[in-house]
């Protein structure tokens, strides 16, 4: 008998991994949403407790349950990542299409913008933008949306250019189809996989950057449950031997980011027509 895995082809495997990843992420989000503020209220009698069954991730210096804080932080991060990545993808799509279809000048301007944003480290522009918009949730989301689009925009631009000059599009145009018809019926379906995969792959970036910005103390109020804030707080207590403050939240962040990465990869496999159902 053959092992189960080889019974499935590459696409089927990708499908299973994708479903598992989505289920896992849904569970995390649901946990984060279901926990209400009560569960991270202070309990001054139960401070600095190492992990137990009651508090699987231990408690912090105010007796707040680290499990709840971590999951609320993670779902906040996913929220920020979702809105941020969506914004970025939107910007990337619009700019990519504009530069590929609206002539040389538009192309030059957009390419210059892309180069400009790529030449400065993400984090620096992100901090600047977040700071200008007054910090907080809004600042971070806008910051992430405005900094993560360049590489995706470049891919979309190249993709659109390629499809535009493809024979079937040329023929379609010669046969009198309108630009709108060509854009919606020919070009968009072709770049949709790129957009989706790009969107998924922006996610882990967005989450990590959200964590980085809150870690540096630029984002949210220090009592809010954000993964970066939790990690930067834990630094102070590491020398006191309270390892659980950093270990579990850090590990969770790692898992989430890795899951999104996997999800992106597998969606690419699922959508790639060059990989057949071998």
């Amino acid at each position, binding site marked *: 008998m053959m092992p189960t895995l080889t019974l499935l082809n590459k696409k089927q495997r990708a499908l299973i991994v994708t479903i598992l990843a989505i289920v896992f992420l849904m569970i995390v989000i649901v946990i984060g949403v279901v926990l209400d503020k009560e569960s991270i*209220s*202070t309990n*001054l*009698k139960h*401070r600095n407790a190492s992990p137990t069954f009651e508090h699987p991730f231990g408690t912090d*210096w*105010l*007796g707040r349950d680290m499990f709840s804080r971590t999951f609320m932080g993670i779902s906040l991060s996913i929220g920020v990542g979702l809105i941020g990545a969506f914004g970025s993808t939107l910007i990337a799509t619009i700019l990519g299409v504009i530069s590929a279809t609206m002539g040389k000048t538009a192309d030059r301007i957009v390419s210059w913008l892309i180069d400009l944003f790529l030449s400065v480290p993400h984090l620096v522009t992100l901090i600047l933008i977040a700071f200008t918009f007054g910090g907080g949730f809004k600042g971070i989301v806008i910051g992430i949306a405005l900094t993560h689009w360049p590489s995706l925009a470049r891919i979309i631009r190249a993709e659109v250019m390629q499809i535009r000059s493809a024979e079937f599009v040329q023929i379609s145009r010669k046969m009198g189809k309108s630009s709108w018809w060509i854009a919606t019926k020919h070009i968009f379906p072709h770049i949709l996989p790129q957009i989706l995969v790009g969107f998924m792959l922006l996610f882990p970036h967005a989450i990590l950057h959200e964590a980085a910005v809150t870690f540096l*103390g630029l984002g949210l*109020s*220090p*009592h809010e449950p954000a993964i970066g804030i939790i990690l930067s707080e834990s630094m*102070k*207590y*590491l*020398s*006191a*031997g309270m*390892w659980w403050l950093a*270990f579990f939240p850090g590990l969770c962040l*790692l898992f989430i980011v890795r899951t999104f990465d996997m999800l992106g990869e597998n969606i690419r496999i699922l959508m790639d027509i060059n990989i057949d159902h071998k």
Partner: protein
Amino acid sequence: MKKKLFRLLTVMAIVFSLVLAGCAPSKSNQSTEKDVKRETDELVLSIKGEPDTGFDPTTGWGRYGSPLFQSTLLKRDDNLNIVNDLATSYEVTKDGKVWTVVLREDVQFSDGKLLTADDVIFTFETALNNGSVVDLNVLDKVEAVNAHTVKFTLKEAQSTFINSLVVTGIVPKHAYGKGYAENPIGSGPYQLVQWDKGQQLIVKVNPKYYDQKPFFQKITFLFLSEDATIAAAQAGKVDVAAIPASFSKQQVPGMRLEALQSVDNRGIVFPYVKSGAVTKDGLPIGNDVTADSAIRHAINIAVDRQALIDGVLEGHGSKAYTSVDSLPWWNPETVFEDADMNGAKTLLHDSGWKDTDDDGILEKGSLKAEFSLYYPAEDTIRQSLSIAVADMIKPLGINIKVEGASWDTIEQKMFSNAVLMGWGSHDPHEMYDVYSSRYTGVDYYNTGFYKNEKVDEYFEKALAATDSTEAIEYWKKAQWDGTTGLSAIGDAPWAWLVNIDHLYLVKNGLDIGKQGIQPHGHGWPITNNIEDWKWAE
């Protein structure tokens, strides 16, 4: 794929175990060096307190602790009594406006020149003109009666003027110039050897010092971050280290923990008036919820201060009832029973606060019992206190929304929202600043726009008093005179929470003398009696 994941996990496990091992407190044999008792007359301290503007008393140096390089006309002893330093006596006229101070005649600056009335006049005039944190507005003129007698004339009587004589170090007229703050010369117990900004300050004994010569000939002050201070203490590199409460549970070999009682207090200042008005800059004033005295009183009596001390300060603190706890001008009648949830509930119920829509938050008419409490985001203790108090108060049905923000933001919000503030001074004038209607909306003083005419009247009387016991009587009455007052049993414009003990790790065998009640600012005030420090026999 599977293999890759496994490899990743293995690498992670190794990295984490290395990190954790690195963090474990090492109990190796580095103590050999530490155990050798240092028979030296040198000290290394890490107690923060580096001044931004250098060592110039006319711009604010040396308000607390030892001014090191300079000396003052009067000083406070370990019991906070005012005693002579450069002065041999002082007199105040009946109307409280003219202060005459007689100076010692044998005092030399470290460069050998005599200290005379001219130097005193020069110091106060410079400080007055600098208009810095040194508040000498009440001073009209300073004159020399003779070479060793100075006459201060005030615009109005102010009994707290004496504090200006306690905290203002005298600078030499002949050696004062542009670079003075970096290169101070004075008549204090020590003189400057070297100052590396942001790193360290090295001082040596001033051989010309007129009073009891300090035991330690050379002192190095390190200006380290909190973490570096702790590391240095653990390595046995410092003799005194200022540490945060979170570290107080750790044993450091060769050092003992000194928890000094303080009036370094933290409390919540409430907007006292109803909303509607705006300041000159257009910032909103007042808050309808906190303007209700039942809300303020209920919070005051419901808060479990001991739980805050144990939970946030690791037990190193004392309950705060006013801004001047345990000081000579504190009125002990202001102490009340706290952690009284039922009392607070009854109080709220009796004044018409009811939960009409069953959401766990009380209402009174259309008003919901909720308000924002701001704290400076970078201050962990204030953050912890804010969250803990909000959670304590929640069962009462009062919803405190906690917001961390920068001071810039707080300055915009502080007149219309509660703020977690801190004060604590050896000068009773601070109580006047914080509670007097004259200081509403001025700097960080009366941000709640508190006003009680009776309290103002006591303040004026206390300032006009010529004798300090009489003044103290009025300061006490301002807090509570039996019917009204600024304390929590009176109008309760604040909910004072805790006084934070100042924690220091002190090398075993080092005697830091008797330390009085410490003022606001953890660190430098410990040097107040640095001349008395010595190795115990």
